[in-house]
Protein backbone atom coordinates (compact mmCIF):
# COMPACT_ATOMS: atom_id res chain seq x y z
CA UNK A 1 0.00 0.00 0.00
CA UNK A 2 1.51 3.36 -1.11
CA UNK A 3 1.88 6.17 1.46
CA UNK A 4 0.56 9.70 0.72
CA UNK A 5 3.31 12.31 0.10
CA UNK A 6 4.42 14.12 3.21
CA UNK A 7 3.45 17.80 3.67
CA UNK A 8 6.27 20.21 3.03
CA UNK A 9 6.35 23.76 4.42
CA UNK A 10 6.08 26.51 1.72
CA UNK A 11 9.21 28.03 0.52
CA UNK A 12 10.19 31.53 1.80
CA UNK A 13 8.48 34.33 -0.22
CA UNK A 14 5.54 32.22 -1.28
CA UNK A 15 2.38 34.25 -2.05
CA UNK A 16 -1.02 32.75 -2.08
CA UNK A 17 -2.66 32.83 -5.51
CA UNK A 18 -6.18 33.82 -4.32
CA UNK A 19 -7.09 37.49 -3.78
CA UNK A 20 -10.38 39.22 -3.25
CA UNK A 21 -12.07 40.50 -6.41
CA UNK A 22 -11.57 44.21 -6.97
CA UNK A 23 -14.29 46.44 -5.55
CA UNK A 24 -15.74 43.69 -3.47
CA UNK A 25 -17.06 44.79 -0.03
CA UNK A 26 -17.69 42.61 3.01
CA UNK A 27 -21.19 42.77 4.28
CA UNK A 28 -21.63 44.52 7.60
CA UNK A 29 -21.29 42.08 10.48
CA UNK A 30 -24.64 40.82 11.81
CA UNK A 31 -25.65 41.93 15.31
CA UNK A 32 -25.56 39.20 17.90
CA UNK A 33 -28.89 37.38 18.17
CA UNK A 34 -31.24 39.02 20.67
CA UNK A 35 -31.84 37.04 23.80
CA UNK A 36 -35.41 35.79 23.96
CA UNK A 37 -37.56 37.14 26.78
CA UNK A 38 -37.40 35.37 30.10
CA UNK A 39 -34.57 34.04 32.17
CA UNK A 40 -31.39 33.31 30.43
CA UNK A 41 -31.77 29.64 31.17
CA UNK A 42 -34.35 29.49 28.40
CA UNK A 43 -31.78 30.56 25.90
CA UNK A 44 -29.29 28.14 27.30
CA UNK A 45 -31.77 25.37 27.02
CA UNK A 46 -33.23 25.50 30.53
CA UNK A 47 -36.86 25.53 31.45
CA UNK A 48 -38.90 28.73 31.27
CA UNK A 49 -39.43 28.55 35.04
CA UNK A 50 -35.84 29.48 35.59
CA UNK A 51 -34.61 26.06 36.60
CA UNK A 52 -31.07 25.23 35.60
CA UNK A 53 -30.95 22.87 32.67
CA UNK A 54 -30.42 19.31 33.74
CA UNK A 55 -26.87 18.25 33.26
CA UNK A 56 -26.50 16.45 29.98
CA UNK A 57 -26.35 12.80 30.77
CA UNK A 58 -24.05 10.44 29.13
CA UNK A 59 -25.49 7.21 27.77
CA UNK A 60 -24.54 5.49 31.03
CA UNK A 61 -26.10 8.29 33.09
CA UNK A 62 -29.35 8.01 31.18
CA UNK A 63 -29.38 4.27 31.74
CA UNK A 64 -28.85 4.70 35.49
CA UNK A 65 -31.55 7.41 35.67
CA UNK A 66 -33.99 5.18 33.81
CA UNK A 67 -33.20 2.27 36.09
CA UNK A 68 -33.71 4.44 39.18
CA UNK A 69 -37.03 5.74 37.82
CA UNK A 70 -38.28 2.26 36.92
CA UNK A 71 -37.13 0.85 40.27
CA UNK A 72 -38.87 3.68 42.12
CA UNK A 73 -42.09 3.13 40.18
CA UNK A 74 -41.98 -0.64 40.79
CA UNK A 75 -41.26 -0.15 44.53
CA UNK A 76 -43.99 2.50 44.80
CA UNK A 77 -46.42 0.29 42.92
CA UNK A 78 -45.73 -2.72 45.13
CA UNK A 79 -46.00 -0.59 48.29
CA UNK A 80 -49.30 0.86 47.05
CA UNK A 81 -50.66 -2.58 46.13
CA UNK A 82 -49.86 -3.91 49.62
CA UNK A 83 -51.18 -0.71 51.23
CA UNK A 84 -54.47 -0.78 49.33
CA UNK A 85 -54.91 -4.48 50.22
CA UNK A 86 -54.15 -3.74 53.88
CA UNK A 87 -56.55 -0.80 53.99
CA UNK A 88 -59.49 -2.88 52.84
CA UNK A 89 -62.44 -2.51 55.20
CA UNK A 90 -63.99 -5.82 54.18
CA UNK A 91 -63.22 -8.50 56.75
CA UNK A 92 -65.66 -11.08 55.48
CA UNK A 93 -64.60 -14.68 54.88
CA UNK A 94 -65.14 -17.03 51.99
CA UNK A 95 -67.11 -19.59 53.99
CA UNK A 96 -69.08 -19.78 57.25
CA UNK A 97 -66.35 -21.87 58.92
CA UNK A 98 -63.63 -19.44 57.83
CA UNK A 99 -65.69 -16.59 59.30
CA UNK A 100 -65.84 -18.36 62.68
CA UNK A 101 -62.14 -19.20 62.60
CA UNK A 102 -61.27 -15.56 61.85
CA UNK A 103 -63.19 -14.19 64.81
CA UNK A 104 -61.87 -16.96 67.09
CA UNK A 105 -58.32 -16.00 66.06
CA UNK A 106 -59.01 -12.36 66.93
CA UNK A 107 -60.63 -13.29 70.26
CA UNK A 108 -57.57 -15.37 71.17
CA UNK A 109 -55.34 -12.39 70.40
CA UNK A 110 -57.57 -10.11 72.53
CA UNK A 111 -57.92 -7.98 69.40
CA UNK A 112 -61.09 -6.03 70.17
CA UNK A 113 -60.85 -3.97 66.99
CA UNK A 114 -60.47 -7.15 64.94
CA UNK A 115 -63.44 -8.80 66.68
CA UNK A 116 -65.69 -5.79 66.03
CA UNK A 117 -64.56 -5.68 62.40
CA UNK A 118 -65.31 -9.38 61.97
CA UNK A 119 -69.02 -8.89 62.74
CA UNK A 120 -71.73 -8.47 60.11
CA UNK A 121 -71.54 -4.83 58.91
CA UNK A 122 -74.99 -3.96 60.31
CA UNK A 123 -74.09 -5.31 63.77
CA UNK A 124 -70.67 -3.65 63.62
CA UNK A 125 -72.31 -0.27 63.00
CA UNK A 126 -74.73 -0.84 65.87
CA UNK A 127 -72.03 -1.74 68.38
CA UNK A 128 -68.65 -0.29 67.38
CA UNK A 129 -69.29 3.45 67.17
CA UNK A 130 -71.36 3.65 70.41
CA UNK A 131 -68.76 1.46 72.17
CA UNK A 132 -65.96 3.78 71.07
CA UNK A 133 -67.96 6.77 72.32
CA UNK A 134 -68.68 4.98 75.58
CA UNK A 135 -64.98 4.35 76.23
CA UNK A 136 -64.27 8.04 75.60
CA UNK A 137 -67.12 9.14 77.86
CA UNK A 138 -65.95 6.82 80.64
CA UNK A 139 -62.45 8.26 80.37
CA UNK A 140 -63.80 11.82 80.41
CA UNK A 141 -65.90 11.15 83.48
CA UNK A 142 -62.93 9.61 85.32
CA UNK A 143 -64.30 6.07 85.40
CA UNK A 144 -61.56 4.67 83.15
CA UNK A 145 -57.94 5.70 83.29
CA UNK A 146 -56.96 8.16 80.52
CA UNK A 147 -54.49 5.76 78.91
CA UNK A 148 -56.72 2.69 79.12
CA UNK A 149 -55.92 0.15 76.40
CA UNK A 150 -58.92 -1.33 74.60
CA UNK A 151 -57.88 -4.94 75.18
CA UNK A 152 -58.04 -4.55 78.94
CA UNK A 153 -61.28 -2.60 79.14
CA UNK A 154 -63.40 -5.72 79.44
CA UNK A 155 -61.06 -7.31 81.97
CA UNK A 156 -62.02 -10.54 80.28
CA UNK A 157 -59.58 -12.92 78.63
CA UNK A 158 -61.01 -15.61 76.38
CA UNK A 159 -59.05 -18.43 74.78
CA UNK A 160 -60.70 -20.85 72.35
CA UNK A 161 -58.48 -23.77 71.35
CA UNK A 162 -58.59 -26.82 69.10
CA UNK A 163 -62.07 -26.10 67.82
CA UNK A 164 -63.68 -28.80 65.68
CA UNK A 165 -66.84 -28.48 63.60
CA UNK A 166 -69.45 -31.16 62.99
CA UNK A 167 -69.13 -30.62 59.27
CA UNK A 168 -72.84 -30.01 58.81
CA UNK A 169 -74.50 -26.63 58.61
CA UNK A 170 -78.08 -25.72 59.43
CA UNK A 171 -79.46 -23.25 56.87
CA UNK A 172 -81.88 -20.71 58.38
CA UNK A 173 -82.51 -19.08 55.01
CA UNK A 174 -80.59 -18.35 51.83
CA UNK A 175 -78.13 -16.06 53.60
CA UNK A 176 -77.83 -17.42 57.16
CA UNK A 177 -76.22 -20.71 58.18
CA UNK A 178 -75.66 -22.13 61.65
CA UNK A 179 -72.44 -24.02 62.34
CA UNK A 180 -71.96 -26.63 65.04
CA UNK A 181 -68.88 -26.59 67.23
CA UNK A 182 -68.45 -30.12 68.55
CA UNK A 183 -65.01 -30.01 70.16
CA UNK A 184 -62.41 -27.72 71.65
CA UNK A 185 -61.98 -25.76 74.84
CA UNK A 186 -62.94 -22.32 76.06
CA UNK A 187 -60.99 -20.71 78.88
CA UNK A 188 -62.44 -17.60 80.43
CA UNK A 189 -60.65 -15.45 82.95
CA UNK A 190 -62.15 -12.30 84.39
CA UNK A 191 -60.32 -9.96 86.69
CA UNK A 192 -61.72 -6.63 87.83
CA UNK A 193 -58.24 -5.45 88.76
CA UNK A 194 -57.26 -5.78 85.08
CA UNK A 195 -59.95 -3.28 84.11
CA UNK A 196 -58.23 0.12 83.98
CA UNK A 197 -60.65 1.83 86.36
CA UNK A 198 -59.48 4.97 88.15
CA UNK A 199 -58.56 4.78 91.83
CA UNK A 200 -61.33 7.29 92.68
CA UNK A 201 -63.99 5.20 90.97
CA UNK A 202 -62.80 1.95 92.63
CA UNK A 203 -62.78 3.72 96.01
CA UNK A 204 -66.33 4.95 95.43
CA UNK A 205 -67.57 1.46 94.50
CA UNK A 206 -65.58 -0.44 97.10
CA UNK A 207 -65.09 1.94 100.05
CA UNK A 208 -63.72 -0.98 102.12
CA UNK A 209 -61.30 -2.15 99.42
CA UNK A 210 -61.66 -4.48 96.44
CA UNK A 211 -63.05 -7.88 97.56
CA UNK A 212 -61.30 -11.11 96.62
CA UNK A 213 -64.25 -12.34 94.59
CA UNK A 214 -63.69 -9.94 91.69
CA UNK A 215 -61.62 -12.40 89.69
CA UNK A 216 -62.25 -15.91 88.46
CA UNK A 217 -61.54 -18.45 85.74
CA UNK A 218 -63.66 -21.02 83.98
CA UNK A 219 -62.72 -23.91 81.71
CA UNK A 220 -65.30 -25.30 79.28
CA UNK A 221 -64.80 -28.47 77.25
CA UNK A 222 -67.27 -28.17 74.38
CA UNK A 223 -67.40 -31.94 73.80
CA UNK A 224 -68.53 -32.46 77.42
CA UNK A 225 -71.48 -30.06 77.15
CA UNK A 226 -73.89 -32.66 75.80
CA UNK A 227 -74.81 -30.62 72.74
CA UNK A 228 -72.81 -28.77 70.13
CA UNK A 229 -72.28 -25.04 70.44
CA UNK A 230 -74.21 -23.46 67.56
CA UNK A 231 -73.14 -20.17 66.02
CA UNK A 232 -74.93 -18.37 63.21
CA UNK A 233 -73.14 -16.84 60.25
CA UNK A 234 -74.60 -14.41 57.77
CA UNK A 235 -73.74 -13.80 54.14
CA UNK A 236 -73.58 -10.16 53.03
CA UNK A 237 -72.61 -9.65 49.41
CA UNK A 238 -70.22 -12.50 48.72
CA UNK A 239 -68.66 -12.67 52.21
CA UNK A 240 -69.60 -14.56 55.36
CA UNK A 241 -69.58 -13.04 58.86
CA UNK A 242 -70.35 -14.40 62.34
CA UNK A 243 -73.70 -12.96 63.43
CA UNK A 244 -74.19 -12.11 67.07
CA UNK A 245 -77.88 -11.24 66.72
CA UNK A 246 -78.81 -14.27 64.59
CA UNK A 247 -77.01 -16.48 67.13
CA UNK A 248 -79.01 -14.92 69.99
CA UNK A 249 -82.28 -15.14 68.00
CA UNK A 250 -81.63 -18.79 67.10
CA UNK A 251 -80.95 -19.68 70.75
CA UNK A 252 -83.97 -17.66 71.94
CA UNK A 253 -86.16 -19.52 69.46
CA UNK A 254 -85.11 -22.83 70.98
CA UNK A 255 -82.62 -23.51 68.17
CA UNK A 256 -85.38 -23.59 65.58
CA UNK A 257 -85.07 -22.10 62.13
CA UNK A 258 -87.69 -19.53 61.20
CA UNK A 259 -90.34 -20.62 58.71
CA UNK A 260 -91.18 -18.47 55.72
CA UNK A 261 -94.49 -17.60 57.37
CA UNK A 262 -92.72 -16.25 60.48
CA UNK A 263 -91.35 -13.24 58.65
CA UNK A 264 -92.50 -9.70 59.31
CA UNK A 265 -91.20 -7.79 56.28
CA UNK A 266 -89.32 -4.55 56.85
CA UNK A 267 -91.41 -1.50 55.96
CA UNK A 268 -89.85 1.85 56.74
CA UNK A 269 -90.93 5.47 56.63
CA UNK A 270 -90.24 8.38 54.33
CA UNK A 271 -88.04 10.24 56.82
CA UNK A 272 -86.13 9.68 60.05
CA UNK A 273 -88.68 11.74 62.03
CA UNK A 274 -91.56 9.88 60.42
CA UNK A 275 -90.02 6.52 61.34
CA UNK A 276 -89.87 7.53 65.03
CA UNK A 277 -93.39 9.01 64.94
CA UNK A 278 -94.77 5.83 63.37
CA UNK A 279 -92.92 3.71 65.97
CA UNK A 280 -94.44 5.70 68.87
CA UNK A 281 -97.84 5.54 67.17
CA UNK A 282 -97.51 1.76 66.71
CA UNK A 283 -96.44 1.18 70.33
CA UNK A 284 -99.28 3.35 71.69
CA UNK A 285 -101.74 1.52 69.44
CA UNK A 286 -100.44 -1.90 70.54
CA UNK A 287 -99.36 -2.71 67.00
CA UNK A 288 -96.19 -4.70 67.70
CA UNK A 289 -95.98 -6.07 64.15
CA UNK A 290 -95.86 -2.51 62.78
CA UNK A 291 -93.16 -1.66 65.33
CA UNK A 292 -91.12 -4.69 64.20
CA UNK A 293 -91.56 -3.70 60.54
CA UNK A 294 -90.02 -0.31 61.37
CA UNK A 295 -86.84 -1.87 62.81
CA UNK A 296 -83.71 -1.58 60.64
CA UNK A 297 -83.31 -4.73 58.52
CA UNK A 298 -79.56 -4.06 58.36
CA UNK A 299 -79.18 -4.04 62.11
CA UNK A 300 -81.70 -6.69 63.16
CA UNK A 301 -82.63 -8.87 60.17
CA UNK A 302 -83.17 -11.73 62.63
CA UNK A 303 -86.07 -9.80 64.18
CA UNK A 304 -87.81 -9.68 60.80
CA UNK A 305 -87.15 -13.37 60.08
CA UNK A 306 -88.46 -14.46 63.52
CA UNK A 307 -91.09 -11.66 63.61
CA UNK A 308 -94.24 -13.78 64.07
CA UNK A 309 -92.52 -15.90 66.74
CA UNK A 310 -91.69 -12.69 68.62
CA UNK A 311 -95.34 -11.57 68.29
CA UNK A 312 -96.48 -14.92 69.69
CA UNK A 313 -94.05 -14.58 72.60
CA UNK A 314 -95.20 -11.02 73.39
CA UNK A 315 -98.85 -12.08 73.33
CA UNK A 316 -101.72 -9.65 73.26
CA UNK A 317 -100.68 -6.08 73.85
CA UNK A 318 -103.38 -3.60 74.82
CA UNK A 319 -103.36 -0.16 73.21
CA UNK A 320 -102.55 2.72 75.53
CA UNK A 321 -105.59 4.79 76.63
CA UNK A 322 -104.28 7.85 74.81
CA UNK A 323 -104.13 9.10 71.27
CA UNK A 324 -101.02 10.70 69.84
CA UNK A 325 -101.97 14.21 68.80
CA UNK A 326 -98.71 15.85 67.89
CA UNK A 327 -94.97 15.22 67.97
CA UNK A 328 -92.03 17.50 67.22
CA UNK A 329 -88.39 16.49 67.03
CA UNK A 330 -84.89 17.80 66.69
CA UNK A 331 -82.67 15.81 64.37
CA UNK A 332 -78.89 15.42 64.37
CA UNK A 333 -76.63 13.59 61.94
CA UNK A 334 -74.84 10.52 63.27
CA UNK A 335 -72.55 8.08 61.47
CA UNK A 336 -74.68 6.43 58.80
CA UNK A 337 -77.97 7.88 59.97
CA UNK A 338 -79.80 10.44 62.09
CA UNK A 339 -80.62 10.74 65.79
CA UNK A 340 -84.15 11.94 66.41
CA UNK A 341 -84.75 13.58 69.78
CA UNK A 342 -88.17 14.46 71.14
CA UNK A 343 -88.90 18.18 71.46
CA UNK A 344 -92.57 17.98 72.35
CA UNK A 345 -95.41 15.49 72.50
CA UNK A 346 -99.14 16.06 72.82
CA UNK A 347 -101.48 13.24 73.79
CA UNK A 348 -105.27 13.18 73.89
CA UNK A 349 -106.63 11.24 76.82
CA UNK A 350 -109.76 9.08 76.67
CA UNK A 351 -111.80 11.83 78.35
CA UNK A 352 -110.77 14.27 75.62
CA UNK A 353 -108.33 16.24 77.78
CA UNK A 354 -104.88 16.90 76.44
CA UNK A 355 -101.47 16.40 77.99
CA UNK A 356 -98.38 17.87 76.43
CA UNK A 357 -94.74 17.70 77.40
CA UNK A 358 -92.20 20.07 75.92
CA UNK A 359 -88.45 19.74 76.39
CA UNK A 360 -86.86 23.16 76.52
CA UNK A 361 -83.29 23.99 77.55
CA UNK A 362 -83.00 20.97 79.82
CA UNK A 363 -86.38 21.64 81.49
CA UNK A 364 -89.73 19.99 80.92
CA UNK A 365 -92.91 22.06 80.44
CA UNK A 366 -95.85 19.83 81.29
CA UNK A 367 -99.32 21.08 80.30
CA UNK A 368 -102.44 19.35 81.52
CA UNK A 369 -106.00 20.55 81.48
CA UNK A 370 -105.02 24.11 80.60
CA UNK A 371 -102.35 24.41 83.28
CA UNK A 372 -98.63 24.43 82.53
CA UNK A 373 -95.92 23.55 85.01
CA UNK A 374 -92.24 23.90 84.24
CA UNK A 375 -89.98 21.33 85.85
CA UNK A 376 -86.23 21.77 85.71
CA UNK A 377 -83.74 19.19 86.98
CA UNK A 378 -83.38 21.00 90.33
CA UNK A 379 -87.19 20.94 90.83
CA UNK A 380 -87.29 17.26 89.95
CA UNK A 381 -84.62 16.56 92.59
CA UNK A 382 -86.68 18.39 95.21
CA UNK A 383 -89.81 16.48 94.18
CA UNK A 384 -87.92 13.15 94.34
CA UNK A 385 -86.36 14.01 97.72
CA UNK A 386 -89.74 14.98 99.19
CA UNK A 387 -91.58 12.03 97.65
CA UNK A 388 -89.12 9.25 98.40
CA UNK A 389 -86.90 10.80 101.02
CA UNK A 390 -83.18 10.24 101.16
CA UNK A 391 -81.83 8.81 104.40
CA UNK A 392 -78.57 10.67 103.87
CA UNK A 393 -77.94 14.31 103.15
CA UNK A 394 -77.44 15.10 99.46
CA UNK A 395 -74.33 17.22 99.09
CA UNK A 396 -74.09 20.13 96.67
CA UNK A 397 -71.77 18.12 94.40
CA UNK A 398 -74.21 15.19 94.37
CA UNK A 399 -77.08 17.53 93.63
CA UNK A 400 -75.16 18.95 90.68
CA UNK A 401 -74.41 15.42 89.45
CA UNK A 402 -78.14 14.54 89.54
CA UNK A 403 -78.96 17.78 87.71
CA UNK A 404 -76.48 16.88 84.97
CA UNK A 405 -77.86 13.33 84.81
CA UNK A 406 -81.41 14.57 84.29
CA UNK A 407 -80.17 17.04 81.66
CA UNK A 408 -78.66 14.03 79.87
CA UNK A 409 -81.96 12.17 80.01
CA UNK A 410 -83.58 15.09 78.20
CA UNK A 411 -81.17 14.59 75.32
CA UNK A 412 -81.91 10.91 74.79
CA UNK A 413 -82.95 10.20 71.23
CA UNK A 414 -83.74 7.40 68.83
CA UNK A 415 -81.15 6.40 66.23
CA UNK A 416 -82.40 5.86 62.70
CA UNK A 417 -80.79 4.61 59.51
CA UNK A 418 -81.72 4.34 55.87
CA UNK A 419 -82.05 1.09 53.91
CA UNK A 420 -83.31 0.90 50.35
CA UNK A 421 -84.48 4.51 50.43
CA UNK A 422 -86.65 3.99 53.54
CA UNK A 423 -85.95 5.10 57.10
CA UNK A 424 -85.93 2.64 60.01
CA UNK A 425 -85.26 2.83 63.72
CA UNK A 426 -82.06 1.18 65.01
CA UNK A 427 -82.90 -0.12 68.51
CA UNK A 428 -79.55 -1.72 69.36
CA UNK A 429 -77.62 1.36 68.43
CA UNK A 430 -80.16 3.52 70.25
CA UNK A 431 -79.65 1.43 73.38
CA UNK A 432 -75.87 1.75 73.26
CA UNK A 433 -76.08 5.47 72.49
CA UNK A 434 -78.47 5.99 75.39
CA UNK A 435 -75.63 5.61 77.90
CA UNK A 436 -73.44 7.95 75.88
CA UNK A 437 -76.12 10.65 75.75
CA UNK A 438 -76.65 10.49 79.49
CA UNK A 439 -72.91 10.37 80.20
CA UNK A 440 -72.25 13.24 77.79
CA UNK A 441 -73.88 15.71 80.20
CA UNK A 442 -71.93 14.52 83.23
CA UNK A 443 -68.93 16.58 84.18
CA UNK A 444 -65.86 16.26 86.36
CA UNK A 445 -66.51 13.92 89.26
CA UNK A 446 -70.26 13.55 88.59
CA UNK A 447 -70.12 9.77 88.13
CA UNK A 448 -68.12 9.29 91.31
CA UNK A 449 -70.51 11.59 93.21
CA UNK A 450 -73.49 9.57 91.95
CA UNK A 451 -71.83 6.28 92.89
CA UNK A 452 -71.07 7.76 96.33
CA UNK A 453 -74.72 8.75 96.71
CA UNK A 454 -75.98 5.30 95.67
CA UNK A 455 -73.52 3.42 97.91
CA UNK A 456 -74.40 5.63 100.90
CA UNK A 457 -78.11 5.12 100.12
CA UNK A 458 -77.69 1.32 99.82
CA UNK A 459 -75.40 1.25 102.86
CA UNK A 460 -78.08 2.85 105.01
Amino acid sequence: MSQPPEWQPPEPGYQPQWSPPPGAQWPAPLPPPAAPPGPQWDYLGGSPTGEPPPPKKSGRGRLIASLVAVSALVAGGVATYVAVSDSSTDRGAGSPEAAIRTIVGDINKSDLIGVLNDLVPGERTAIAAPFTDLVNQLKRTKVLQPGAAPATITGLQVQLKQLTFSGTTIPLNDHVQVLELTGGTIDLSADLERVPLTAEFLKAIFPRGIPQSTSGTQHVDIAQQGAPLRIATQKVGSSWYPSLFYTVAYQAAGERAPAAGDAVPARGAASAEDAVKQLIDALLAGSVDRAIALVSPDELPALHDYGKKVLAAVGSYQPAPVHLEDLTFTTADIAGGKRVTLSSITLTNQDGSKTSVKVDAGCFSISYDGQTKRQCPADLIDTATQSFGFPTKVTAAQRQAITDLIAGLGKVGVDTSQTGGQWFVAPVRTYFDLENEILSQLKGNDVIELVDLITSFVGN
Partner: protein
Amino acid sequence: MRRRLAPAAGALGLILLVTGTFLPWLRSGDVRRNSYQAGGALRALVDLPGLLDVAVRVWPFVGLWCAGVVVGFVLGAPRFAALLGLLAGLLGSVVATATLQARGSGLIAASRSGPSVTLAGSLIVISASLSLVTRAPTLTRRRS
Protein backbone atom coordinates in the same frame (compact mmCIF):
# COMPACT_ATOMS: atom_id res chain seq x y z
CA MET B 1 -21.08 18.40 47.94
CA ARG B 2 -24.05 20.54 49.02
CA ARG B 3 -25.71 20.00 45.65
CA ARG B 4 -25.89 16.30 46.33
CA LEU B 5 -26.86 16.54 49.97
CA ALA B 6 -30.48 17.58 49.43
CA PRO B 7 -31.36 14.77 46.97
CA ALA B 8 -29.59 12.20 49.15
CA ALA B 9 -31.39 13.43 52.27
CA GLY B 10 -34.65 13.54 50.34
CA ALA B 11 -34.22 9.93 49.21
CA LEU B 12 -33.48 8.84 52.78
CA GLY B 13 -36.52 10.78 54.01
CA LEU B 14 -38.79 9.17 51.43
CA ILE B 15 -37.56 5.69 52.39
CA LEU B 16 -38.15 6.46 56.09
CA LEU B 17 -41.57 7.98 55.37
CA VAL B 18 -42.78 4.92 53.45
CA THR B 19 -41.10 2.37 55.74
CA GLY B 20 -42.72 3.97 58.76
CA THR B 21 -46.18 3.50 57.27
CA PHE B 22 -45.64 -0.27 57.33
CA LEU B 23 -44.50 -0.30 60.97
CA PRO B 24 -47.03 -0.58 63.86
CA TRP B 25 -49.41 2.37 64.21
CA LEU B 26 -52.27 0.84 66.17
CA ARG B 27 -52.29 -1.67 69.00
CA SER B 28 -55.25 -3.80 69.96
CA GLY B 29 -54.60 -6.76 72.22
CA ASP B 30 -51.65 -8.72 70.84
CA VAL B 31 -52.16 -7.31 67.35
CA ARG B 32 -50.17 -4.45 65.87
CA ARG B 33 -51.54 -2.80 62.74
CA ASN B 34 -49.61 -0.77 60.20
CA SER B 35 -50.98 2.59 59.11
CA TYR B 36 -53.00 1.12 56.22
CA GLN B 37 -54.55 -1.66 58.30
CA ALA B 38 -55.27 0.86 61.04
CA GLY B 39 -56.94 3.22 58.57
CA GLY B 40 -59.06 0.43 57.12
CA ALA B 41 -60.09 -0.81 60.57
CA LEU B 42 -61.00 2.69 61.74
CA ARG B 43 -63.00 3.45 58.61
CA ALA B 44 -64.96 0.24 59.11
CA LEU B 45 -65.66 0.99 62.76
CA VAL B 46 -66.26 4.69 63.05
CA ASP B 47 -67.39 7.50 60.82
CA LEU B 48 -64.29 9.65 60.42
CA PRO B 49 -64.77 13.41 60.07
CA GLY B 50 -64.48 14.84 56.51
CA LEU B 51 -60.84 15.83 56.14
CA LEU B 52 -59.55 12.87 58.16
CA ASP B 53 -61.64 10.52 56.02
CA VAL B 54 -60.10 11.99 52.86
CA ALA B 55 -56.58 11.67 54.34
CA VAL B 56 -57.20 8.02 55.26
CA ARG B 57 -58.56 7.27 51.77
CA VAL B 58 -55.57 8.76 49.91
CA TRP B 59 -53.02 7.47 52.43
CA PRO B 60 -52.46 4.05 50.71
CA PHE B 61 -51.15 5.91 47.65
CA VAL B 62 -48.35 7.62 49.57
CA GLY B 63 -45.85 5.00 48.28
CA LEU B 64 -46.68 5.74 44.66
CA TRP B 65 -46.57 9.45 45.42
CA CYS B 66 -43.05 9.11 46.84
CA ALA B 67 -42.05 7.11 43.75
CA GLY B 68 -43.29 10.07 41.69
CA VAL B 69 -40.89 12.33 43.62
CA VAL B 70 -37.92 10.12 42.68
CA VAL B 71 -39.02 9.81 39.04
CA GLY B 72 -39.54 13.56 38.75
CA PHE B 73 -36.06 14.23 40.09
CA VAL B 74 -34.12 11.74 37.97
CA LEU B 75 -35.98 12.82 34.82
CA GLY B 76 -34.76 16.36 35.31
CA ALA B 77 -37.70 18.12 36.95
CA PRO B 78 -36.30 18.94 40.39
CA ARG B 79 -38.87 21.66 41.12
CA PHE B 80 -41.77 19.37 40.34
CA ALA B 81 -40.15 16.63 42.43
CA ALA B 82 -39.62 19.08 45.28
CA LEU B 83 -43.26 20.15 45.16
CA LEU B 84 -44.47 16.54 45.24
CA GLY B 85 -42.02 15.79 48.05
CA LEU B 86 -43.20 18.80 50.02
CA LEU B 87 -46.83 17.67 49.78
CA ALA B 88 -45.91 14.07 50.72
CA GLY B 89 -43.89 15.33 53.67
CA LEU B 90 -46.69 17.59 54.88
CA LEU B 91 -49.29 14.82 54.60
CA GLY B 92 -46.98 12.35 56.37
CA SER B 93 -46.13 14.75 59.18
CA VAL B 94 -49.77 15.75 59.77
CA VAL B 95 -51.05 12.15 59.85
CA ALA B 96 -48.14 10.92 62.00
CA THR B 97 -48.45 13.82 64.46
CA ALA B 98 -52.22 13.33 64.73
CA THR B 99 -51.70 9.63 65.47
CA LEU B 100 -49.07 10.31 68.10
CA GLN B 101 -51.41 12.86 69.70
CA ALA B 102 -54.28 10.32 69.67
CA ARG B 103 -52.61 7.96 72.15
CA GLY B 104 -55.17 6.33 74.40
CA SER B 105 -58.19 7.97 72.82
CA GLY B 106 -61.23 5.72 72.68
CA LEU B 107 -60.54 2.45 70.94
CA ILE B 108 -57.27 3.76 69.59
CA ALA B 109 -54.08 2.83 71.33
CA ALA B 110 -51.45 4.21 69.01
CA SER B 111 -48.04 2.60 68.71
CA ARG B 112 -45.12 4.98 68.63
CA SER B 113 -42.73 3.26 66.22
CA GLY B 114 -44.62 3.68 62.93
CA PRO B 115 -45.72 7.30 63.31
CA SER B 116 -42.33 8.34 64.74
CA VAL B 117 -40.38 6.92 61.77
CA THR B 118 -42.85 8.42 59.29
CA LEU B 119 -42.68 11.79 61.06
CA ALA B 120 -38.88 11.77 60.97
CA GLY B 121 -38.91 10.84 57.29
CA SER B 122 -41.53 13.48 56.50
CA LEU B 123 -39.53 16.24 58.18
CA ILE B 124 -36.39 15.24 56.25
CA VAL B 125 -38.38 15.21 52.99
CA ILE B 126 -39.81 18.66 53.74
CA SER B 127 -36.31 20.06 54.45
CA ALA B 128 -34.84 18.48 51.31
CA SER B 129 -37.74 19.71 49.16
CA LEU B 130 -37.42 23.26 50.46
CA SER B 131 -33.68 23.12 49.85
CA LEU B 132 -34.24 22.00 46.24
CA VAL B 133 -36.86 24.68 45.64
CA THR B 134 -34.71 27.50 46.98
CA ARG B 135 -31.52 26.34 45.27
CA ALA B 136 -32.63 26.65 41.65
CA PRO B 137 -33.11 30.45 41.52
CA THR B 138 -29.73 30.96 43.19
CA LEU B 139 -28.02 29.08 40.38
CA THR B 140 -29.96 31.09 37.79
CA ARG B 141 -28.81 34.39 39.24
CA ARG B 142 -25.20 33.27 39.35
CA ARG B 143 -25.16 32.28 35.69
CA SER B 144 -26.92 35.41 34.48
